[in-house]
């Protein structure tokens, strides 16, 4: 053990004896993390105790209490004070320390030494890595303009400073991966309610319709717990999914709907509700645009019409519509999360938004859907001063807004960005700076993604592991894990939460705040990074609230007292101030102003829908190397229904070849009754190419080898379940 890390009990007693004086003295003593924790009282003299922080195993951001013993984190607990964890963590959250202690961590900066994809790198100093990165990026800017550099990162707490990097640099090309996930949901709810993602409230819910929202496997800890509480209380759950997931197993009614036809089912529900006048008319007349003409707009969408498309009997649709309406304000159609399924997924989301409007469940006290804008409950945090961004005149490579007029700028169309690298249209990109993203596995059509990477002059990746994209990069910048670093603060429900280190940073890893600042300075963008270090950044955030960082460090959160005025009139953040079931914005952009039916493509005989989905043991593409999650995961196999399997002479664990229009993989098959006979399913996140991931490398197959690129024209979402495949014994 490094003797400088050790602090004796007597030293500690001395420190405590000095009180504040001891605290000030201690700031000169290494190691920083243990000392800070002792100073505020989280750790005892032996370095044992609990340090509150925040999970980063998915984007739900649960509160964590990290148990530390002798400088190592040994266990993570859910923080009971955090509304997202309520004392619990899911399997991924529980396993988080295995990401930090992964034997495959990249702990020094690396510069490529061999050919791209060969995996040969040399260890370099931060100075050399950052000088090299800045030199390459500036050379691209000087030769081709700043727009020739693409920047991508998704949904991290350090996102604000990442955006400073790209906006300060002057590139419009921002890739967020959101089009592979929730573009349809966010775009539809923005247009209809003026909010990105309405919150759900299960307190009084009596009837829940989940449209493919697999809440027991795609877990948001508190929400999944709330759902199970509601079911135990007797709420009814109806679940639409072509696959018998674990959520289906918990549902009162599982409806194995034909893929791509969710909107037909929902439009028919709307038809029944408005025709029979089952809606909350008072609410609808007051707050909804289009209530008078809605009956005409959905006239043709009868349950009989929907039955032909969805394969669900008309009587079932009619009954569910009536049950939904009967639950009134206590009915909820979940908006969904990853809603990138078909090119008509935007219409599915519009229909969901409409059904919720008809039940009047928004804005009532304890309503099931909370369409309040996040600003309403936000806390006015400070931030470091910075100059305005340079004016950017170049068009975005991803087609927003010139090709996709309604896609929000901060969402973008990630798959289109990749294709623009290949086509060189409207101009050629030359470099890509990627932070904690893995487009090699996330984007559809991996073959094209690898081709795109090979066209670039320079690729830099920031990550804690040698992910598949890092494997093909020129520079890998090792980030400190979420248990090793400070991130900008996070506000939930009026409380300010901290992510703080619970152990000393291993190796040469650095926080994103540090990496962006030191790279930014080398790019001549120092004015956008006016903080001395991470702690200074947080102190500047807290300054307007008059709150101390020490209190935040000890409790994990602070709750500033902010006087809020209840708005006198309920308004929505839409052009009309109402819920826009009829959207003039959509009409003006040349799209249907009403929720509408758009025919999806159907597979030919002998072809299957290739479904995607989630498992509770993994998050996207970044956790498959975690030994605890690897230990408790199911073997990744292709689900196939018993009948088509019998026709092909297949039994469970037989090897099959799955072929799509863009590629083919070999994978073991799982024969089950739990999927429609016209579908197969593959869990994403497997089939890693990076040999730097020793646990995950070569394990399972990647659906990105099979997915063809199809984009929803309204929301820009990638249609991940619209690829059709054939399956044969290998």
């Amino acid at each position, binding site marked *: 053990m490094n003797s400088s890390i050790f602090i004796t009990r007597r030293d500690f007693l001395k420190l405590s004896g000095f009180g504040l004086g001891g605290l000030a003295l201690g700031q000169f003593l290494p190691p920083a993390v243990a000392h800070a924790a002792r100073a505020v009282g989280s750790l005892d003299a032996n370095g044992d105790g609990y340090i509150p922080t925040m999970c980063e195993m998915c984007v739900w951001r649960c509160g964590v209490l990290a148990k530390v013993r002798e400088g190592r984190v040994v266990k993570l607990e859910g923080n009971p004070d955090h509304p997202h964890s309520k004392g619990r963590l899911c399997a991924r959250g529980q396993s988080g320390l295995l990401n930090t202690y992964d034997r495959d961590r990249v702990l020094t900066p690396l510069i490529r030494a061999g050919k791209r994809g060969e995996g040969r790198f040399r260890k370099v100093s931060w100075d050399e890595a950052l000088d090299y990165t800045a030199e390459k990026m500036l050379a691209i800017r000087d030769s081709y303009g700043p727009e020739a550099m693409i920047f991508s990162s998704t949904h991290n707490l350090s996102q604000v400073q990442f955006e400073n990097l790209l906006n300060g640099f002057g590139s419009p090309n921002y890739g967020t991966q959101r089009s592979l996930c929730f573009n349809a949901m966010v775009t539809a709810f923005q247009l209809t309610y003026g909010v990105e993602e309405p919150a759900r409230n299960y307190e009084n819910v009596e009837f829940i319709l989940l449209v493919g929202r697999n809440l027991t496997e795609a877990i948001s800890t508190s929400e999944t717990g709330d759902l199970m509480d509601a079911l*135990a209380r007797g709420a009814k759950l109806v679940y639409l999914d072509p696959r018998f997931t674990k*959520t289906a197993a918990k549902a009162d009614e599982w409806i194995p709907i034909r893929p791509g036809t969710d909107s037909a089912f929902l439009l028919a529900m709307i038809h029944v509700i408005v025709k029979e006048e089952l809606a909350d008319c008072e609410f609808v007349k007051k707050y909804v645009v289009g209530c008078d003409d809605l009956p005409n707009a959905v006239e043709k969408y009868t349950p009989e019409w929907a039955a032909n498309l969805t394969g669900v009997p008309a009587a079932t649709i009619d009954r569910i519509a009536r049950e939904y309406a009967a639950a009134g304000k206590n009915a909820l159609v979940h908006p969904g999360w990853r809603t990138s399924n078909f090119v008509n997924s935007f219409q599915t989301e519009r229909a969901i938004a409409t059904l919720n409007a008809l039940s009047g469940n928004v804005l009532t006290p304890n309503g099931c859907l909370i369409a309040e804008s996040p600003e309403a409950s936000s806390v006015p945090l400070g931030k470091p001063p910075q100059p305005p961004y340079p004016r950017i005149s170049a068009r975005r490579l991803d087609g927003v807004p010139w090709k996709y007029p309604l896609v929000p700028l901060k969402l973008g169309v990630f798959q289109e960005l990749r294709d623009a690298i290949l086509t060189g249209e409207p101009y050629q990109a030359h470099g890509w700076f990627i932070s904690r993203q893995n487009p090699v596995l996330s984007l559809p059509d991996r073959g094209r993604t690898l081709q795109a990477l090979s066209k670039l002059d320079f690729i830099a990746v920031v990550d804690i592991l040698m992910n598949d994209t890092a494997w093909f990069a020129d520079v890998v910048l090792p980030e400190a894990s979420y248990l090793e670093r400070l991130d900008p603060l996070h506000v939930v429900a009026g409380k300010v939460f901290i992510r703080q280190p619970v152990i000393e940073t291993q190796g040469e890893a650095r926080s994103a705040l540090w990496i962006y600042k030191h790279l930014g300075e080398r790019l001549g963008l120092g004015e956008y990074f006016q903080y001395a270090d991470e702690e200074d950044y947080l102190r500047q955030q807290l300054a307007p609230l008059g709150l101390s960082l020490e209190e935040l460090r000890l409790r994990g959160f602070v709750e500033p007292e902010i006087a809020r005025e209840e708005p006198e009139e309920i308004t929505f953040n839409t052009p009309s101030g109402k819920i826009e079931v009829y959207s003039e914005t959509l009409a003006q952009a040349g799209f249907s102003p009403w929720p509408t039916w758009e025919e999806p493509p159907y597979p030919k005989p002998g072809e299957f829908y290739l479904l995607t989905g989630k498992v509770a043991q993994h998050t996207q593409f970044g956790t498959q190397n975690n030994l605890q999650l690897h230990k408790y995961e199911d073997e990744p196999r292709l689900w196939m229904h018993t009948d088509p399997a019998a026709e092909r002479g297949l039994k469970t664990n037989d090897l099959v070849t799955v072929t799509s229009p863009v590629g083919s993989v070999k994978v073991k098959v799982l024969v089950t*009754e739990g999927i429609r006979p016209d579908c197969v399913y593959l869990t994403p996140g497997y089939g890693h190419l990076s040999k730097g991931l020793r646990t995950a490398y070569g394990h399972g197959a990647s659906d990105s080898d099979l997915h063809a690129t199809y984009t929803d024209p309204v929301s820009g979402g990638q249609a991940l379940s619209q690829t059709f495949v054939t399956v044969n014994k290998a």
Partner: protein
Amino acid sequence: MKKRYGFVIDVARCIDCRACQVACSVENRVPDNHTRIWVQDLGVQGTFPDLQRVFVPYNCMHCENPPCTEVCVSGATWKDPNTGLVLVDQEACIGCGFCVDACPYNARYLDEQRGVVDKCNGCLQRVEAGLEPACVATCVGGARLFGDLNDPDSAVSTALREARSVVRLDIEDGGVDPDPNIYYLNLPQMDSLDLTAHTGQPLVTQSGTLPRSPKYSPAEVGWKKVLTPLVLAGVGASFLVQAVYFTKQLIDGESEFDE
């Protein structure tokens, strides 16, 4: 009053997310090739689209009459009279593995690296510090409860009192009743979900009057007296072979979806 710790598991709330398993393995530093806790997936039952699927979490049942302690050669495993937990003193364990075979639930494993037997200890190290066991504290669906069955006001006693039906995974064959201390709520009816299909013997006994008082029958006492020396002599007793066979069927008999 002496405690009798046990688990109550609401099967309707288990979503097979495996947070309990990861939490247990991290808390107790369980080797990567072993586990102290399971979620038994009874498989997709029925014909598309009329399907059912049930998840039954379990770990050491901390039995009232634990067959495992009876066969311990070194006295390393015992039922702790103060807590009711079945514990292993790994300093004293010689790793003979008799108890692993004796456990009717396969809830023990031999740690080859350390040469000792390991199993669920009810996270006694946490419970003594005022915390819930790791699996209970983190259960996302709220399926798991842990507490003192002797305390009428504990969460487990309250849940059992209010339950419509309570089921234990019990073995009646062989004349021994281990009297397990995991009580299941909302386990579906056996006629709709045939738990007996793979064993030909009932593994699940329905009882509305649990928990029942621990007591040995004369037959069981006799069994212990006769059986322990037999096992010590390295001769497999027919009951044990049977019991292990049945539970192995329960545990290994079904992979995820095999019908």
